[in-house]
């Protein structure tokens, strides 16, 4: 056993990130195995697939840290973890899309090298990606056979034979499908089943599903679970990646929990509870404690009422959200990424036209106003995608520090830029916001992620602002930068700014916020006073959307 796969007993006393596995839900793998064998569940044959000590580093991030994983034939093995815990990286390694820096992969007992997906496909590994790898303008059949076409002769595809095989395959999984339908016209649930067909058409023995239910309706989830059970019963091993606890408990035969790139424990779905898993998954590690005084809320500065927003594909991802943010308070929105937070923020900041609803700043209706008008009204915005929206990477630091007010004095006089004003402001802000840069004339793209974010923070915070919208303000940053940005946000609040904080990091929301809303599938399911917030409960709401207990206060 390598260190990654230690049970909770090894790490419990260290108080480290994994220490949350305090309750004896997670047994060491060996005990688990024994239990499974005793239960007659797993045969004694070699595991279908084994990953040993897998390590993968990205610049500045240790995505996988000596992960061990073992998949038995015919089992549904859930890989549970928060967003960014390293699950997808691990599975991309298994599918040959990424090469591990360390570690080995064994299939049916023999060590293999997976250089590209072709290798993985040949070894019977199939993958259903979180973002479907389907060509929307192709038919079902074209998508399924792509790469392993059924040929009528050396040139032409035998479309009919392919259609028949696809129909048969679908029937064996308990559903029917029209192979000549255009994939882009089909429901997401059906598209996912096409992805499964695609893997099986290639003879997959191990099927990886990356967050398969993230985009499904409850009904579609039920259907896909039926398909998966059927597959497992026929001997296909399934790796089920998810952060949704109740689903994992429902479908999995075994559960492995990953946090911050490490395996933090295993659980048996028959005995574990959602609360146990939530504790393991979200962790209760050393927190970056932020000193702050109680909020002194003033007038309502930002009011959002009944806001609905569509994403780029036109589906309604924000559905009737209402909340208010007062001056001098931080309103935090927690939620698993992709539950409509980004679209909601874009609608508030004028980058996306809402379907319906209203946004008011200091009592004035500013729905769908231009970003520049909102800027003039005192709205500052830290965008989630900082490299796309927040910065022009090829521009120097001083230009980026004036990206939103280059057209006003002192930066422009009658349309002519005043270089010295850019320089002066940069010289003032660079030390003030601790931006580590060789000079103010180097391209922002050459700075580290933390310093890039500090450039945005410096620009937005140095304006006389009334409302601050911070979307994922510390995602992917180093600890020092996170701490710095947190302090700045608190300072703004104390100066009377209304702060809307959106983050998928529950810790961050809990540390900073005065009131907390939880977003789930485009709806603000609950609003809680931070004093009453309990991490486990919020984690549960984030993962399930169910408020359960009765003590929450409804949105004002």
């Amino acid at each position: 056993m390598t260190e990654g796969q230690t049970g909770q007993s090894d790490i419990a006393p260290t108080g480290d990130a994994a220490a949350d596995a305090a309750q004896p839900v997670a047994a060491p793998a060996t005990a688990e195995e024994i239990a499974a064998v005793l239960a007659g569940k797993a045969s004694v044959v070699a595991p279908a697939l084994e990953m040993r000590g897998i390590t993968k580093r990205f610049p500045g991030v240790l995505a996988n840290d000596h992960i061990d994983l073992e998949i038995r034939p015919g089992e549904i093995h859930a890989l549970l973890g928060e967003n960014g815990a390293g699950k997808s990286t691990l599975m991309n390694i298994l599918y040959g899309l990424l090469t591990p820096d360390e570690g080995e992969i064994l299939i049916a007992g023999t060590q293999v090298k997976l250089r590209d997906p072709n290798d993985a496909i040949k070894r019977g590994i199939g993958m259903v990606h979180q973002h479907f790898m389907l060509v929307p303008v192709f038919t079902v059949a074209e998508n399924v056979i792509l790469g392993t076409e059924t040929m009528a002769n050396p040139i032409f595809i035998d479309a009919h034979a392919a259609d028949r095989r696809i129909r048969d395959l679908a029937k064996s999984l308990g559903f029917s499908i029209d192979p000549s339908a255009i994939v882009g016209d089909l429901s997401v649930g059906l598209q996912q089943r096409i992805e499964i067909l695609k893997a099986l058409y290639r003879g997959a023995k191990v099927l990886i599903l990356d967050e398969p239910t993230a985009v499904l309706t409850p009904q579609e989830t039920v259907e896909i679970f039926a398909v998966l059970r059927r597959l497992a019963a026929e001997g296909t091993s399934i790796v089920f990646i998810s952060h949704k606890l109740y689903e994992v408990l429902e479908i999995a035969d075994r559960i492995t929990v990953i946090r911050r790139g490490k395996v933090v424990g295993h659980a048996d779905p028959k005995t574990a509870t959602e609360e146990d898993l939530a504790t393991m998954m979200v962790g209760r590690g050393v927190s970056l404690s932020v000193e702050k005084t109680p909020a002194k809320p003033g007038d309502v500065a930002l009011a959002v009422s009944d806001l609905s927003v569509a994403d780029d594909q036109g589906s309604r991802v924000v559905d009737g959200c209402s909340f208010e943010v007062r001056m001098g308070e931080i309103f935090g929105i927690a939620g698993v990424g992709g539950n409509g937070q980004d679209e909601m923020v874009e609608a508030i900041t004028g980058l996306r036209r809402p379907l319906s609803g209203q946004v008011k700043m200091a009592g004035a209706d500013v729905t769908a106003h231009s970003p520049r008008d909102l800027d003039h009204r005192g709205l500052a915005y830290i965008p989630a995608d900082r490299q796309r929206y927040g910065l022009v990477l090829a521009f120097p630091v001083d230009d980026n520090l004036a990206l939103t007010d280059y057209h006003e004095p002192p930066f422009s006089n009658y349309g002519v830029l005043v270089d010295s004003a850019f320089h002066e402001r940069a010289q003032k802000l660079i030390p003030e916001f601790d931006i580590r840069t060789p000079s103010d004339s180097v391209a922002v793209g050459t700075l580290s992620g933390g310093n890039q974010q500090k450039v945005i923070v410096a620009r937005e915070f140095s304006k006389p602002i009334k409302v601050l919208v911070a979307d994922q303000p510390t995602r992917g940053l180093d600890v020092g930068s996170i701490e710095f940005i947190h302090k700045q946000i608190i300072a703004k609040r104390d100066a009377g700014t209304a702060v809307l904080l959106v983050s998928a990091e529950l810790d961050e929301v809990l540390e900073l916020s005065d009131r907390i809303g939880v977003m789930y599938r485009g709806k603000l399911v609950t609003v809680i006073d931070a004093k009453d917030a309990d991490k486990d409960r919020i984690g549960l709401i984030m993962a399930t959307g169910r408020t359960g207990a009765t003590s929450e206060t409804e949105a004002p």
Partner: protein
Amino acid sequence: MPDATPSGLTIDTTKVPGIGTGGGRRGLLVTTILAIVLGLLLGAVLIVISEVMSGRGFDLAVPFKAYQALIEGSLKDARAIGSTLNIATPLILSGLAVTFGFRAGLFNIGGNGQFLMGAFFAAIVGAAPIFQGPLHMVLAILAGLLGGMLWGFIPGILKAWRGAHEVVTTIMLNYVAYLLLNELASRVFRDPTATFAKTRDVTADAQLPILIEGTRLHAGILVALLTAFLVWFLLFKTALGFEIRTVGINAFAARYAGMKAAFIAVLTMSLSGGLAGLGGAVENLGVTKGYPAEYIVNYGFDGIAVALLGRSHPFGVVGAAVLFGALRAGAGSMQRATGIPIDIITIVQAFIILFVAAEPVLRRAVPWLRSRRTPAASAAGA
């Protein structure tokens, strides 16, 4: 930016040499010089091959003779230098036109048509006997600017309004301008006294004055240099230029910063056309002095070559245009000395920008340029 470019032709400004590169000025200079040297070298190889093909035999000395004649023809004396600068003048302006578009993420291949429009407008106003003195010249130049702007405005508005990609529309407008102006020059505005179809001569006070006695160097070069300075000032020293550059590099950030991308696109295309038109005006008032029918020029693609070698910077464009001007000015004496067709210059030009386009390969090939501070480039392209 109009959200999509539906014709499937997209330009990624960060890939245009000189805009998205984070390799630093020195790296840029080295690869540029390397590209020029390699281009001339390939040209030399081609000269040797062409000698063999035309039956004059294998002789490694010919390229040296040719390039020597080339340099003499372009730099030998005041006359030669004057001719170099005269040829460089419209190249500077066409190069500025392309550069201006590049900076806003637009690819203006229509420099040729815009040049012709500018030349024609300037010729008509310059020949009109209604104005007197230097004012006449100024008005003729402005007319050329206007003509080019009109021919740039059309693709600009079609792009912003209908999503028609400027690459195809500007090229089509080149042909339309050529045929339309042929018609006008050979019929409506034809000079009845001329032996061949052309418009009337530009009057003396509308012509650009000769700068140095004994040469043909006209004041157009001053117009070009002043324009280069103004373009630099506009792009890098004004709020509008800030917007143009932001829209060109990152349309998302431009929207975040409250800029109006569609308006910028139309304005940039018009001004870009205006610059090419200015080139036509200056060339006409300084050299041609009247618009001839069947007026065949190639300033559209020449402008692209100049802009690419000049790394999309107004001052770089001046340097590149003077280099290409010198090559052309000397090409005649090279042909007289060695019999090599002057079109070798176009090929050398093509080779040079081929190496500019393949800059990543050059950077990998030259060890001490290798991957120092490239994150900006890679990040900007992400």
